[in-house]
């Protein structure tokens, strides 16, 4: 088994682009189990970064570090430094509630609130003390998520009445309504049909100009279609019978898919793996 090679990940973002999110030697434990080890990762602003890798490799775990969702799991412990706009967010001094307004998240399974479409959008704005006009916010967010034309006549109807793909775009609209800087997407299309998947992918391209997007995906075609950079994680079996994930390689997406440096990456992206 090859040991983790952080050097390749640091060099991935060499240009002068400003870095939105940075992970420095991040390890996550669940209880005494080391789930992900020593991840170094730079995520530039206004790019789409895809995390790929087999199940249990820790890509979702690392994603949840960026908005401190791991705080909600009592046994999870995060080590190392995570920086957002150059500011450390992993420490006790940063308030996770405030952080989560600036780093939004979209989940694997669409999870709209069992409320009206309108209320789904306005909830985040209300709790965060939005000062502007709510009708205008709802329209802007739904347009931003390419959903406005489909739902503009039924804003008072339940968000649960929409199709799966529409629900997921509603969740994206809900996330952008609070004007985050980063949107984290945890396998956002795995519960959607191909047509809805394409719509969400097109939407991600549109959102790139305003937001930094990190997406976890099992679908390698999706990673190669949407992302600018790709991080490949792998998992190795531990002595305790669990799995420990690590970052194998992080580079421009073309490089990962056409000319990876690591053999594991080559095997994985060519489908000869797992």
């Amino acid at each position, binding site marked *: 088994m090859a040991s983790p090679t952080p050097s390749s990940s640091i060099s991935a973002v060499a240009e002068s682009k400003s870095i939105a999110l940075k992970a420095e030697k991040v390890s996550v434990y669940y209880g005494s189990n080391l789930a992900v080890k020593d991840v170094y990762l730079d995520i530039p602003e206004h790019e789409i970064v895809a995390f790929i890798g087999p199940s249990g490799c820790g890509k979702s775990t690392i994603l949840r570090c960026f*908005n401190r*969702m791991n705080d*909600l799991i*009592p046994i999870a412990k995060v080590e190392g430094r995570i920086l957002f706009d150059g500011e450390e967010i992993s420490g006790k001094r940063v308030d996770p*509630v*405030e*952080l*989560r*307004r600036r780093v*939004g*998240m979209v*989940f694997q*399974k669409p*999870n*709209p*609130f*069992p*409320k*009206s479409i309108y209320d789904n959008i306005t*909830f*985040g704005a209300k*709790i*965060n003390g939005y000062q502007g006009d709510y009708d205008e916010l709802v329209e802007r967010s739904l347009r931003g998520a390419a959903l406005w034309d489909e739902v503009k006549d039924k804003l008072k*109807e*339940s968000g*649960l009445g929409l199709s799966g793909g529409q629900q997921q775009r509603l*969740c994206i609209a*809900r*996330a952008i309504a*609070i004007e985050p800087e980063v949107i984290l997407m945890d396998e956002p299309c795995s519960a959607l049909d191909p047509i809805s998947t394409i719509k969400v992918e097109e939407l991600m391209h549109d959102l790139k100009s305003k937001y930094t997007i990190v997406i976890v995906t099992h679908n390698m075609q999706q990673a190669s279609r949407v992302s600018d950079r790709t991080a490949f994680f792998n998992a190795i079996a531990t002595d305790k019978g669990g799995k420990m994930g690590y970052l194998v390689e992080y580079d421009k997406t073309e490089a990962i898919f056409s000319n990876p440096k690591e053999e594991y990456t080559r095997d994985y992206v060519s489908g*000869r793996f797992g």
Partner: protein
Amino acid sequence: MERNISSRPPENAPKAARESNFAVNLNRRYMMDRIFKAAAWGATIISVIILSWLLLTILMDGLGTLNWNFITSFPSRKAERAGIIAALAGTVWLMGLVALFAFPIGVGAGIYLEEFAEDNWFTQFVEINIGNLAGVPSIIYGLLGLAVFVRIMEPITGGRSVLSGSLTISLLILPIVIVATREALRAIPDSLRLAGYALGATRWQVVRSHVLPAALPGILTGMILALSRAIGETASLIAVGAAVFISFLPEGLNSQFTAMPIQIYNWISRPQDEFHYIAASGIIVLMAALLVMNGLAIYLRNRFQQEKL
């Protein structure tokens, strides 16, 4: 890793293999189906028959003496002049106060234990004890109420008062309310909470805006069950000292009181047949009160469900 394609069996093999490897035996399986369907139907019909038999005998005994006079009269030594108004009023007072005490405390404790408390020895200790308390006989609660609410807190409760009685019954049903609240909260999927947190909501905002509204129908169902138990409660009230012969309505929290189950028990234990008939009438009134109360709770539940969309 690669599949060995050449090892595939010949074309006609799968069918032969299927016949030899499985004894489908549909007849036997459908037979078991029918047997268990009949058994379940039997269990249902037995409970329905017993219940309707109970109802029928009560109605036959009680309807004759059930009239407006019975409902609006105070108890009397003469069965034909005796009525249930004092007990009915006492029960209404009790139920109102019990709902007032038990709902906020029980639901609050349930929310704390399920949504806020960390999983440590203290919460586990509390949890085990709440489970045990639900099984404690009601007479024990009655003795506790006698010691604490009637004796120690007499300056506040006024001794053997409707307030002491309702506090005692509130204690009695608290475990049921707490357990029902926790079950209802636990049934709400975590994805809903995560959605709230991901938008920068605090724990209370997530609970208040999303979890509690979604769980409210379940919580109210638990409350209905708890109040249904409370309305029939007799032993603990006797221990607390509910009077059996009261010829006035409760005027305030410190007023003496009686309740319908106690009145009914009192009538049944008299030797004269006439009193047995008015006891049956009392049972009909008690059941009607229970129906009204549950109907109200179900109406509230449905309203909340509609608001939720």
